């Protein structure tokens, strides 16, 4: 138990630090799926672990244990040092403002994308062209028909500046890239990773890492679809250079240079061993979380039973009976 409860926290720290580098080493499709799965698994389990650790400290506060009908005598000999529990509780409190901020931001951006999808759903064709001097295109995700909600079709939006910049083959590659985003449901991976970063803000670097992986994935898909890696590299390069001079933020996220370089090189290696190791690590994290939850449940059962032994006149409450 004492190891298992810390493992998800360690996994989240490790993923938060090494996730972007792992994403660059893996082939993009594998990177997207594994990083998203790892983010969700470590975000939820690390939060559960911190809450679990904190609960040991909270129950040592005089009077609280009695409210929960738990035996103090048993809790004193609990498997978790109350100091560690206190640190975990403080960590949870410290993460809360970051989680709130990320949550509010995600809500606004998701709502913005939804409005965009709804606006463009009225457009009569799968591609919409709008007038803008910047060369840019994006894939607007759709929504399948749901009860009480009409379906929203997917759309590809491009600026006239981009279409004029590219030649025929390059345009075809660009559309193949955008279609790959839609066909592979990249927006869902991005949404899930952002949710994971809201749940545990230690994973704040993961959304950018998954964004980069989905861009590379769409690049590889498009290169395969048009049967030529270089044509997409040229499309990207030419369009990017026409947008110069840029307003360069300190940290550019989607690394056009890296994407062009990857397309000018042979297809990426598979790295099956690395992928398998990460898959196993995700499984181990989930297992250790379940195991530590089970042991904690067992420990509190013992504490509850001991409390009832010490208070034989008070009947077991319905919820405490098993």
């Amino acid at each position, binding site marked *: 138990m004492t190891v298992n409860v810390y493992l998800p926290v360690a996994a989240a720290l490790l993923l938060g630090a090494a996730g972007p580098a792992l994403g660059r080493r893996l082939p993009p499709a594998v990177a997207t799926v594994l990083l998203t799965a790892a983010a969700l698994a470590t975000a939820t389990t690390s939060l559960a672990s911190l809450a679990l650790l904190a609960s040991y400290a909270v129950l040592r506060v005089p009077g609280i244990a009695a409210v929960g009908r738990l035996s103090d005598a048993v809790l004193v000999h609990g498997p978790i040092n109350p100091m560690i529990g206190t640190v975990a509780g403080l960590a949870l409190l410290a993460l809360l403002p970051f989680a709130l901020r990320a949550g509010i931001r995600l809500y606004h951006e998701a709502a913005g994308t939804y409005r965009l999808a709804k606006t463009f759903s009225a457009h009569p064709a*799968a591609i919409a062209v709008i007038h803008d001097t910047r060369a840019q295109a994006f894939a607007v995700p759709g929504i399948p028909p749901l009860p009480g909600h009409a379906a929203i079709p997917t759309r590809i939006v*491009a600026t006239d500046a981009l279409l004029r910049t590219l030649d025929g083959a390059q345009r075809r590659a660009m559309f193949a890239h955008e279609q790959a985003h839609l066909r592979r449901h990249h927006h869902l991976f991005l949404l899930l990773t952002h949710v994971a970063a809201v749940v545990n803000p230690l994973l704040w670097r993961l959304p950018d890492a998954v964004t980069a992986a989905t861009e590379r994935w769409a690049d590889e898909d498009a290169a395969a679809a048009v049967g030529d890696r270089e044509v997409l590299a040229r499309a990207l390069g030419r369009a990017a250079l026409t947008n110069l001079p840029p307003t360069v933020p300190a940290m550019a996220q*989607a690394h056009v240079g890296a994407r062009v370089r990857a397309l000018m090189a042979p297809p990426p290696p598979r790295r099956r061993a690395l992928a398998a190791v990460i898959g196993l690590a995700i499984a181990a994290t989930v297992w250790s979380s379940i195991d530590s939850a089970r042991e904690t449940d067992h420990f509190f059962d013992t504490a509850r039973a001991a409390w009832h032994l010490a208070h034989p006149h008070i009947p077991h409450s319905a919820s405490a009976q098993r």
Partner: protein
Amino acid sequence: MGTGRRPAGALEQEVLSTLWASPYPLTPSAVQERLGDGLAYTTVKTILDRLHDKGMLTRVREGKAYAYSPVMAQSDLAAEAMRAALDGSSDRPAVLSKFLGELSADDAAVIRELLGELP
């Protein structure tokens, strides 16, 4: 390029983007020529008619045929939504996948070196 067969939506997309890339209206045969791939004239003409019926193209008489040009994507709403997507906070978008991210000075140098003759 060209294995010939493509899904219908993709063809419509290419016809549209061909028209968009042209500085002047194009006749069906001009579109056919630009697309290459040995597409039948009637196929191109059918797509152009369909797009025109949807209100996505305008056409002017040019000799015996019509020459088509694309209509800008429409409502102020769409344009506004689009600009919101292009601007501001969306250099780090949550779920919207953009073709191009921001370009750093290093990126520009890398691209110029890799692609050689680009401007």
